[in-house]
């Protein structure tokens, strides 16, 4: 399951810790990197590489929100709607975004599979709300027009890729 590049990266990661188990979160990030979620083979590969029982790996995955067990859209959009952001209009911003993406109020994946939208807890950008992270990149002080421009760029990219 590990590519040569990933195998090398994993070895580098392991050097940072006195125990293999400490590398569990970094190894899971590595296993998740290519397709954005973890399938059974990924979990098995991580468990074997770190000599950790499969059930332990699954228990850890279940505890942390940034690991996913289901396929997602190509790009993850996380909008913070916690209190400080909500005071600056983040809840309405999020609600409008769900409607423009044709999604229910709890978010989800767009029909074209390009975006997965979620409302998430604090991302430490309270002073720049409304804000979101797309694939972990911060976008701050957002208006509807700004986010539309950003999403249009992603759509154009995807079209170019499928055309190429």
């Amino acid at each position, binding site marked *: 399951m590990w590519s040569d590049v990933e195998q090398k990266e994993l070895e580098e990661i392991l050097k940072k810790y006195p125990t293999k*188990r400490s590398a569990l*979160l970094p190894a899971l990030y590595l296993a998740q990197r290519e397709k954005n979620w973890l399938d059974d083979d990924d979990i098995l590969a991580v468990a074997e590489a770190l000599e950790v029982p499969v059930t332990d790996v699954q228990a850890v995955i279940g505890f942390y929100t940034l690991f996913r067990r289901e396929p997602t859209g190509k790009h993850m959009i996380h909008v913070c709607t916690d209190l400080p952001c909500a005071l600056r209009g983040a809840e309405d911003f999020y609600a409008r975004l769900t409607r423009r993406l044709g999604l229910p109020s709890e978010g989800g994946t767009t029909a074209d599979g390009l975006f997965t939208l979620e409302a998430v807890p604090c991302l430490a950008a*309270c*002073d720049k709300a409304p804000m979101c992270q797309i694939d972990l990149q911060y976008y701050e002080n957002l208006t509807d027009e700004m986010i539309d421009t950003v999403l249009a760029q992603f759509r154009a990219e995807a079209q170019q890729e499928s055309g190429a």
Partner: protein
Amino acid sequence: MANEYLKEHILLRHKDIPNIGDIDVYIADNGYVGLKKVLESMPPADVIETVKAAGLRGRGGAGFPTGVKWSFIPKGAKDVYIVVNADESEPGTFKDRELMEYNPHLVIEGAAIAAYAVGAHTIYIYGRGEFKGPFVTLQKAINQAYEKGILGENAMGTDYALDLHLHLGAGAYICGEETALLNSLEGYRGYPRSRPPFPAVEGLYAKPTVINNVETMANVPGIIRHGVEWYRRFGTERSPGTKVFCLSGHINRPGNYELPLGAPIRYLIEELGGGVPNGKKVKAVLPAGESSLMIPADKLDTPMDYESMAAIKSMLGSASFIVMDETVDIVWAAEKMIHFFKHESCGKCSPCREGTFWLSKVYQRIRSGQGSMDDIDLLTKIVDQMTGNTFCQLGEFATSPVKASLLHFRDEYEQYIQK
């Protein structure tokens, strides 16, 4: 001038010198002079005594004296670890992210000095998985420090070895609690550990460990470079030094502001933050994020230091001031905060796991117009059962929104019920 209380920035130095994240710029501004000084001329015990004398208190929230924390490491212990808590997840708090992103060498230098003081050769910075952006610049800074021989086998040309690794969490508020953080770093679920044993005796990999917040580390180089007397020129007798104050919510100029401890809340909100937008009035302020007891507008002349904030029955904590204007529905705000704590409860202990679950249910009932006066007593009852009975401090914090909103704005609950 940074502001009326501070001639130039000490922690948010990048506001005066924008590219200080680059190692050459940092070095040109006296950077790594503190680390060089301790490695070449100070016995570790002297470093600890200096930080103790400076009176630096932990900036993560608890305000525990940093030098005292360092002195708990058993003398002559082997395999000591330094862990920098960069798991900044408290809603309203965004100071560590800025420090790591824009002034990373100050954090690295502080952590390196701390390592030398307690005899550690390995430092881990544990940060949020969401902090990919700040961590790119932080990792670049670490790489530069290795290239310049500041970190590595022979730190700054001495025979002291210093390694520093970044470690990413994966989305769990609880990992800001220091023993939960250690479990997470070891590759386990982030459940808090029972104490004793304290981390200074049995911490990471059951070895003596010091865990300090990012901003705490950022305070250390200045103390070593300029001395105790210089440091104590800022702040108050019992709360010395400067602090980064995060300002968010209903405010004209939100952001991070550095002030000496003891400056009044009003100065932060009205002068630096430019007051509340649209000429509205302040209704309440959360001084340390959602974990803190909100204070009403008549307390804005309180000095922002550990003692004064405790005296008005709240806390300074991480100094994350969330301003709510007169239009805010306090019951809505309390429900939002409870929703956060319910989502982030790690599930280890029942008072927090069940308590936040039931609080959330009662809030839904009240807010949907189905509540009764008994529900107000029920909220009080639930938080009373949680208080003092949760496994870690975070469960205790979950009661703050309920307690403080009922204390100051009980009438708003009654209005919901009588509607």
